[in-house]
């Protein structure tokens, strides 16, 4: 096998194992330098030497296996995949939702305060975007955690099974989540579960509202629940597609 063939085979083996392109490039460059040094030491450019100099390096498969093993040892996520792809996504989602609810309450308080505390008329733009806003508050943590999990998996070259498992967990928990908001004082009624229902606020009373967060599944899930279920799976699908596409490009470029 000549030098270029050896390096190409190594590059392909590394890329197949999802090692990041920047690392593959660095490794191949260093080994290419190593080969050049080896040839310079022998002061030889004989075709025979070019074919046989690679034996001290080991086979591309052996070198790739060593590189992958060492690369994975470097990453916390590779050493503790259960913690990273099962426990942490669930905890992160819980923390994300707590933060989202707090943000939502603070935002609502701020709007009441900006309206002079009467709350008799909510801004029309808020009423218009409210269904999307409530959905986004539930969805954002799910999407963020899914993206984060995929990014961590990509950087650790851990393959697609662990991030897929994490995204399925996120989809199941996320798909069951319900965020129910009622806000009185809206001249068009009360917002309930991102839908308006007729209700009248007694005149002169300050606006009140309630916010409920929980889990529930039904044979006819709400549209937002379908979205919440689908988004992490879509993010994982995008990640897998991107990984395989980068791998193909890298092998072809090599």
């Amino acid at each position, binding site marked *: 096998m000549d030098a270029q063939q050896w390096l190409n085979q190594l590059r392909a083996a590394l890329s197949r194992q999802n090692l990041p392109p920047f690392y593959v490039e660095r490794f191949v460059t260093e080994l290419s*330098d190593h080969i050049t040094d080896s040839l310079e030491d022998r002061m030889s450019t004989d075709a025979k030497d070019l074919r046989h100099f690679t034996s001290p*390096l*080991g086979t591309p498969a*052996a*070198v790739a296996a*060593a590189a992958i093993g*060492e690369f994975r040892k*470097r990453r916390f996520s590779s050493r503790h995949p259960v913690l990273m792809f099962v426990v942490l996504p669930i905890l992160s989602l819980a923390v994300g939702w707590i933060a989202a609810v707090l943000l939502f309450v603070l935002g609502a308080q701020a709007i009441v305060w900006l309206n002079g505390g009467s709350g008799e008329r909510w801004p029309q733009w808020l009423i218009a975007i409210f269904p999307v806003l409530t959905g986004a508050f539930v969805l954002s943590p799910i999407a963020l955690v899914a993206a984060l999990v995929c990014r961590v998996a990509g950087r650790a070259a851990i393959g697609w099974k662990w991030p897929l498992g994490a995204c399925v967990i996120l989809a199941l928990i996320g798909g069951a989540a319900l965020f129910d908001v009622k806000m009185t004082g809206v001249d068009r009624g009360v917002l309930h579960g991102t839908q308006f229902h007729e209700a009248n606020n007694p005149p002169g009373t300050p606006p009140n509202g309630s916010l409920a967060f929980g889990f529930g599944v039904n044979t006819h899930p709400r549209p937002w629940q379908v979205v919440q279920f689908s988004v992490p799976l879509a993010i994982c699908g995008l990640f897998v597609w991107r990984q395989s596409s980068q791998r193909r490009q890298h092998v072809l470029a090599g």
Partner: protein
Amino acid sequence: MALRKSNPAFLNGVPELLILELLSRRPMHGYELVQTIRAATDGSLEFGEGCVYPILHRLESDKLLAASKETVSGRVRLVYRVAPKGKAQLADSVSAWRRVVTAIDTALEGGAHGRAAVA
């Protein structure tokens, strides 16, 4: 470092020790380091040369080594040197290695406790 089959599996961790020791003497690039390992061990330890680099990368990632691009013999090379954390790690590893070697030697030579047990 993946050792060839001719080297026993209990040498795990030895390549890291060797690399840290040799790089603590002077900074080197990969090829130079491989040649130095060969010379320093009189060829007794056989290494797959290509497998030295992943260990260097891991040690760098663990902040035990630092790598910088330098021009060596007219070519830009990645030169590795031991970082302060690597020096501390080397001292620990050397002392652990000496303890292990002493203990194994004692056992192999049939130390006092070993003889009593056999008798």
